[in-house]
């Protein structure tokens, strides 16, 4: 099947409505990245999503899009809250996979001489890698409290401060979480993994603010040039994977009863306003809360490590949480559709919320500027801080990109990395790396990802978020 795209402007292409599609597809990209996308099936997936009941306006894809299961990664789709579907495949396995950024009072030249000690100490204190287990031991009863409370649970147990909660998307808790909706298997899988980084593309990065694009907003975010930062990318670990897996299996059977003719089994879904749909929404919220507690605990551990290495107290060190965003989630939000405010279920699968100044969903601090958006790049290049915009509200249900997006398969990356010492190559660029998995480093090498600056240029150029600052990595801890 060849898909013909219609160019709208410099950054947008339309995938016209054909066949069973209820709405068109809109792809944010540029001419050169689009060539890569065309080799994949991601475009077909954008079209498939457009066939699902209740979809509003368009099936959207961000510039970091690539092939996923059912829904493409980098996909955004909003469904009518009353007459639309909710789909586990529209969220992904790693529910509330996300990023948080903490900004220290230190500058690069203070950290550089102790960088090796710092990354080694982080490596020892933040459990990472395949199946890593954490230092937080939970009973099932306590685990259910984590699922209910999210970040609040972590702060209540001494892992952080109240201001951390304030600076987390949705205050680190989806209120609808209902632990009775999750399986024993999910509880079992999640019990030992709280406070762990995981493997694959998850990481912890010490970086430095390399460039400021918007001085006023950067200042409001607490960022200045030369400042040392900590960026953390992780999710809901085995707990979230199991929730997704359980509901995919269940909904595959459920859709047959509904009589939906799905182009792909991984698009399995339920009507939001049904017992099954709400059960998934409430279970997914448990995983979202687990992920927030997870990142909160790791941030706290990292602060303790910084404190020890630099012999500084928490006040002097600062290490304030700038923000925490999730990029795999489905949420009830209110958006203007055809001139009317409507409740919708926004699926962001590898996409980040991009709420503008004045949005009631933001904490007071960011209501003046718009929310911080954190976009991690590959480990050798750069990460970006952006700010949310009104244009995103108008065009993308308040959403933007989430990362660089892979271009090489893990196997192709390993092949390309054969005979090379990726860690040495990075060290030559001034980036220290510590890792756990044998093949992680080759799989995650910089060439395996799209050029992050191109992705950022598209979302900035299209206006669905705006550049604030660029972070350059100094040391990276990979799972």
């Amino acid at each position, binding site marked *: 099947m060849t898909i013909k795209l219609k160019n709208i402007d410099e950054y947008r292409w339309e995938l016209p409505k054909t066949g069973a599609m209820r709405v068109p597809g809109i792809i944010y990209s540029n001419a050169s990245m689009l060539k890569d996308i065309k080799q994949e099936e991601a475009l077909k997936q954008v079209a498939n999503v457009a066939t699902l009941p209740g979809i509003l306006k368009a099936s959207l894809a961000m510039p970091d899009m690539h092939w996923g299961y*059912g829904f493409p990664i980098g996909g955004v789709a909003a469904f009518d809250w009353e007459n639309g579907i909710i789909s586990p495949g529209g969220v992904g*396995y790693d529910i509330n996979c996300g990023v948080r950024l903490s900004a220290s009072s230190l500058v690069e030249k203070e950290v550089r001489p102790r960088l090796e000690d710092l990354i080694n100490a982080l490596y020892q204190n933040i459990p990472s890698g395949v199946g890593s287990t954490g230092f937080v031991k939970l009973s099932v009863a306590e685990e259910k409290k984590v699922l209910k409370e999210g970040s609040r649970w972590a702060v209540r147990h001494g892992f952080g401060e109240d201001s951390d909660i304030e600076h987390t998307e949705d205050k680190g808790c989806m209120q609808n979480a209902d632990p009775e909706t999750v399986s024993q298997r999910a509880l079992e899988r999640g019990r030992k993994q709280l406070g762990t980084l995981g493997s694959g593309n998850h990481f912890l990065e010490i970086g430095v603010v390399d460039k400021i694009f918007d001085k006023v907003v950067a200042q409001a975010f607490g960022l200045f040039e030369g400042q040392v930062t900590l960026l953390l990318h992780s999710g809901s670990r085995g707990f979230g994977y199991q929730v997704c897996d359980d509901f*995919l299996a269940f909904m595959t059977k459920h859709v047959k009863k509904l009589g939906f003719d799905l182009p792909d089994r991984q698009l399995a879904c339920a009507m939001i306003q049904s017992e099954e749909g709400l059960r998934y929404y409430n279970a997914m919220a448990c995983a979202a809360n687990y992920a927030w507690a997870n990142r909160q605990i790791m941030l706290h551990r990292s602060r303790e490590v910084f404190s020890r290495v630099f012999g500084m107290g928490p006040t002097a060190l600062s290490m304030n949480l700038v923000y925490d965003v999730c990029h795999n989630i489905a949420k009830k939000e209110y958006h203007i559709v055809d001139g009317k405010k409507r409740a919708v279920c926004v699926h962001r699968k590898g996409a980040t919320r991009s709420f503008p100044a004045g949005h009631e969903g933001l904490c007071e601090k960011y209501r003046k500027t718009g929310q911080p958006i954190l976009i991690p790049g590959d480990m050798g290049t750069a990460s970006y801080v952006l700010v949310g915009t009104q244009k995103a509200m108008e065009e993308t249900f308040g959403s933007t990109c989430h990362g660089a997006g892979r271009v090489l398969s893990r196997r192709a990356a390993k092949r390309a990395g054969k005979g090379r010492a990726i860690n040495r190559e990075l060290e030559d660029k001034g980036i220290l790396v510590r890792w756990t998995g044998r*093949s992680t480093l080759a799989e995650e090498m910089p060439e395996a990802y799209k050029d992050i600056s191109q992705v950022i240029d598209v979302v900035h150029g299209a206006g669905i978020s705006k550049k604030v600052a660029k972070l350059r990595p100094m040391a990276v801890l990979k799972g």
Partner: protein
Amino acid sequence: MKYEIIDHTADLGIHVFGADAKGLFANAAFALFDLITDIDALKGLNELEVHITGDDWPDTMVNWLRELLYLWTCKEMLVKTTDIFYLTEHELTAKVKFDSYDPDRHEIKNEIKAVTYHQIQVEKGPPGWESKIIFDV
């Protein structure tokens, strides 16, 4: 050849072969644990019985691998061999030989998060049976 790896941008897939249905399902189990660990280092000291059901061949295949993955992710069991003694399109019963995970003895090569339904295929030959399965990693 029991299986080969399928290259996918973000994930890991397997193309599995078998002389018959039982052989195919046994080789799929082998492929899963071959990706997770070094099977040669396993002794298969313990045994348990697994029973699963499915709506059709692809569903039965996914449920079989999901069940085995559950043994690893929740029970920390590493499977060496499977003896499938009952198999239809809708049901499978097998004896599974496994070792309990010991970080000092067993290397973990890949984290398999889940077995997906994406582009799942199970096909009867001739010449034999084959299946394509994609894992989320």
